[in-house]
C-alpha cells in the first residue's frame, strides 16, 4: 500500500459555547476575570459539568489514499465543516493531529477574497494568489478563467457593479482552475442556480477523474453516490460509519440521522418530547396519501404528525402543533399552527393524536424544504417537542408550463413561488 494522502489521528475540536471563544467587548473579558474565582469554586463543587464547551469533533481518525474521492455526510452540526476547516488549516484542532501529503486546495465558500473596489481582472489575480496560484499560472489561465465565468465584457469593471450571480461565476471560475493534489469541497459551493450546481458537480467529476484526492461534504445523497465510492458518516463529532458509499448512506438514512420524508419513533422513551407529549411520527404525504420525498410544485402536500398525549390536559389548555418550513439556506419560509383550530376536547384524556396540515400546490419554490415540528403548551408557553429538520421533501418543477415559471428554465429566485392572479389588458384609452 502506498502512502496516504491524508492521515487524521484522533482530531478533536472544542468550541466555547455561547461566545464562540471570543468576547465582543473587553468589558465581558474583564467581567470574566473578576468572576473567574467564583466560577471556579462553583465548578469544583458541582463537579465539572461539560456545559461550557462543545466538542465539534471528538477523536476523529481516518486515512485517505491518493486519488480517493471521499464523501462526508451527516446532519447539520455533525462536525463536517469543522473537519474540512481543520484539514484546510483555517483553524487548529484542540487535540490530535493530521498529516496532509500534497498541496491542498479548499473550496469552502465562493467569493473568497473578492474586493468590491477592484476590477474583475484585479480580483482574479488576487483571488488566484490567495488560493495559492503563482502569478505565472494565473497569467497562463487568465483567458480560460474569464471565459469560464462568462464575464469578458466586464473584466475591467469594479466587482461592486457586478450582479451577485456574476461574482459567484467568476469566483468559481478561479477556483475551478486551481489544480491541487487534494481538493476539499464544502457543499456551500453548490448554492446558486441549477446550471451553476451542474457545473460544480461536472468540475468535481473531472478533478476526481484526474486522479486527485477529493473530500466532498454534501447533503445531497444522489451527488455523493455519483461522485464518491467511499463515504464517511459523522454525527456528534465522531465517525459513525466509514465505508462503501451505498452502505454508509443506508446507515445514515436508517439511523434517522438523515432527514427523509418520514420518521417514526418506536421507542417511546427516546422519542422527542417530555412527560406530557411524545412525538411518535412525522410524514410528508402527497394527495394520494403516499409518503413522498419528491413533490411536484403544482401538487398539494401534507405533513402528518402523530404524538402521544401522556397525561390529560387541563380544560382548554391542550398542547398544539406548530410547523415551520425552512429552505436549504436556513431561511424560514413560513410557520403555521393549529393553535386556534384544534379540538380541545381531544386533549381531555391521554391517547394518540394525529394532526395533519395541507400545503397547497403552487406555493413553495423549488428545492429542499425542511420541516421543524413544535408541540407547544398553551399553559406554560413552553414546548413539549422541538424537533428541527424532522422531515424534508424536495419540490420540483418539471416545467410543464402551467406552474409559475411556465416553460422558462432559467434561474427563478425567491423563497416562495405562489401562483397569483394576473390581469393584463390594454390601458390604451381608445380601446376602452
Amino acid at each position: 500500500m502506498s502512502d496516504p494522502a491524508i492521515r487524521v489521528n484522533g482530531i478533536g475540536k472544542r468550541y466555547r459555547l455561547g461566545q464562540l471563544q471570543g468576547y465582543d467587548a473587553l468589558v465581558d473579558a474583564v467581567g470574566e476575570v473578576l468572576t473567574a474565582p467564583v466560577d471556579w469554586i462553583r465548578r469544583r463543587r458541582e463537579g465539572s459539568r461539560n456545559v461550557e464547551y462543545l466538542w465539534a469533533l471528538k477523536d476523529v481518525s481516518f486515512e485517505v489514499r491518493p486519488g480517493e474521492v471521499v464523501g462526508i455526510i451527516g446532519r447539520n452540526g455533525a462536525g463536517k465543516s469543522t473537519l474540512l476547516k481543520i484539514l484546510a488549516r483555517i483553524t487548529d484542532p484542540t487535540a490530535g493531529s493530521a498529516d496532509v501529503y500534497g498541496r491542498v486546495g479548499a473550496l469552502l465558500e465562493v467569493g473568497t477574497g473578492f474586493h468590491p473596489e477592484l476590477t474583475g481582472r484585479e480580483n482574479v489575480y488576487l483571488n488566484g494568489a490567495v488560493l495559492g496560484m503563482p502569478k505565472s499560472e494565473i497569467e497562463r489561465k487568465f483567458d480560460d478563467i474569464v471565459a469560464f465565468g462568462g464575464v469578458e465584457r466586464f473584466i475591467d469593471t469594479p466587482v461592486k457593479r457586478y450582479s451577485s450571480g456574476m461574482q459567484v461565476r467568476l469566483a468559481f471560475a478561479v477556483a475551478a482552475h486551481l489544480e491541487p493534489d487534494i481538493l476539499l469541497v464544502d457543499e456551500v459551493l453548490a448554492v446558486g442556480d441549477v446550471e451553476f450546481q451542474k457545473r460544480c458537480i461536472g468540475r468535481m467529476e473531472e478533478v476526481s477523474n484526474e486522479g486527485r484526492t477529493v473530500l466532498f461534504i454534501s447533503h445531497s445523497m444522489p451527488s455523493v453516490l455519483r461522485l464518491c465510492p467511499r463515504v464517511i458518516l459523522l454525527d456528534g463529532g465522531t465517525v459513525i460509519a466509514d465505508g462503501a458509499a451505498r452502505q454508509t448512506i443506508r446507515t445514515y438514512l436508517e439511523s434517522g440521522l438523515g432527514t427523509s420524508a418520514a420518521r417514526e419513533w418506536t421507542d417511546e422513551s427516546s422519542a422527542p418530547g417530555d412527560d406530557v407529549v411524545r412525538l411518535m411520527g412525522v410524514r410528508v404525504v402527497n394527495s394520494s396519501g403516499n409518503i413522498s420525498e419528491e413533490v411536484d410544485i403544482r401538487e398539494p402536500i401534507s405533513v402528518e404528525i402523530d404524538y402521544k398525549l401522556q397525561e390529560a390536559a387541563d380544560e382548554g389548555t391542550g398542547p398544539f402543533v406548530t410547523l415551520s418550513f425552512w429552505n436549504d439556506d436556513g431561511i424560514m419560509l413560513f410557520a403555521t399552527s393549529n393553535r386556534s383550530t384544534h379540538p380541545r376536547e381531544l386533549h381531555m384524556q391521554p391517547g394518540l393524536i394525529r394532526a395533519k396540515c395541507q400545503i397547497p400546490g403552487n406555493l413553495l419554490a423549488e428545492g429542499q424544504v425542511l420541516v421543524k415540528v413544535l408541540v407547544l403548551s398553551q399553559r406554560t408557553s413552553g414546548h413539549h417537542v422541538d424537533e428541527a429538520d424532522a422531515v424534508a421533501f424536495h419540490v420540483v418543477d418539471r416545467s410543464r408550463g402551467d406552474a409559475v415559471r411556465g416553460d422558462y428554465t432559467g434561474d427563478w429566485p425567491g423563497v416562495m413561488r405562489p401562483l397569483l392572479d394576473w390581469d393584463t389588458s390594454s390601458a390604451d384609452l381608445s380601446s376602452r
Partner: protein
Amino acid sequence: MLTSDRPAHITIRGDRRRVVPGLVELWTYRELLYFFIWRDLKVRYKQSIIGVGWAVIQPFTLMVLFTYFFGHFAKLPAQGPRPVFYYSALLLWTYFNNAVSQAAQSVVNGAPMLTKVYFPRLLFPLSAVLSNLVDFAIAFMLLAGLMAYYVVQHAPNVHLGPQTLLIIPLTLVVVITALAVSLWLSAWYARYRDIRYLVTFLLQFWMFASPVMYPSTIIPAKLRAIYFLNPLAGAIEGMRWSLTGLSRPPATLMLISMLAVLVVLVGGLRHFRKFEGTVADVV
C-alpha cells in the same frame, strides 16, 4: 501546480505554532504578500482624484499649520528651518500613525478571507505596514525638494552629510515599531472590538509623547531617560539631526529603546502565532 516552494507534507497540530517556522513559511508566501500590498494600494486610491497626492497633502498641510501656529503665533522653540523641522517629524509620524491604525484593523477586515482560505495571517499586519511605506516614499520626495531648496539658498543650520544616510535605519526603526505594536493590536482587535477606540486614543497620546510639534529639548533633563524610551522620539530627533546637524539625540538611550522594540516585536510574533491558530473561530 501551486507555488513549488511550499512544503508538500504538512502536519496539522493544535499545539505547535512556533515563530521561526512561521517566518520561514512567510517567505514561501512572499508572492501573496506582494499581492496584498498591491491590493492595499489599489483600494486606497480607487475613485480618488488626487490619488497618491494625498500621501503628500496630509503631512504638508500639517507642516504649514505647525509652522504658522507653533512658529509664528505660539513661538515654540525649533532647530533649523521650521518647515524642515516639522515636515521631517510629520513624515515619520504620518507613516507610523497610518500604518498602525490600518494594520490594527487588518485582521478583522480580512475576516471574510481568513475564514475560508489558509495563508499565514501575519501577512495582514505585515502588508498594511509595508504598503504604507509607498506613501512614505512619495511624501519623502517633498522633503528632498525642501532640502534641495535650503541647500541652494545656503540656509544656515542645514547640513547634509554622511549622517544623512541614517535616515534609512531610522525609518526602519519606525517600521519595526509599527509592526511590533500592530501585531498585538490586530490580534486583540480580532477578539475585543474595544481596541478600535483604544488605537485612536493610543495614537493621539503617542503623538504628544513624541517630538512632533516641539523639540525634545523642552523635556526636563531628568525625564529624558524615560522620554527617549519611546523609539519614535529617538527616530524623529535622529531624523532632524541627520538633516540639520543640530541637537544630536542620545545614542545610548536610542539603543535601549530599540532593544525594547525588539522585545515587543518578538513577544508580538509569539502572541500572534498563538492566536493565529484559532482566529477563524473568534473574529
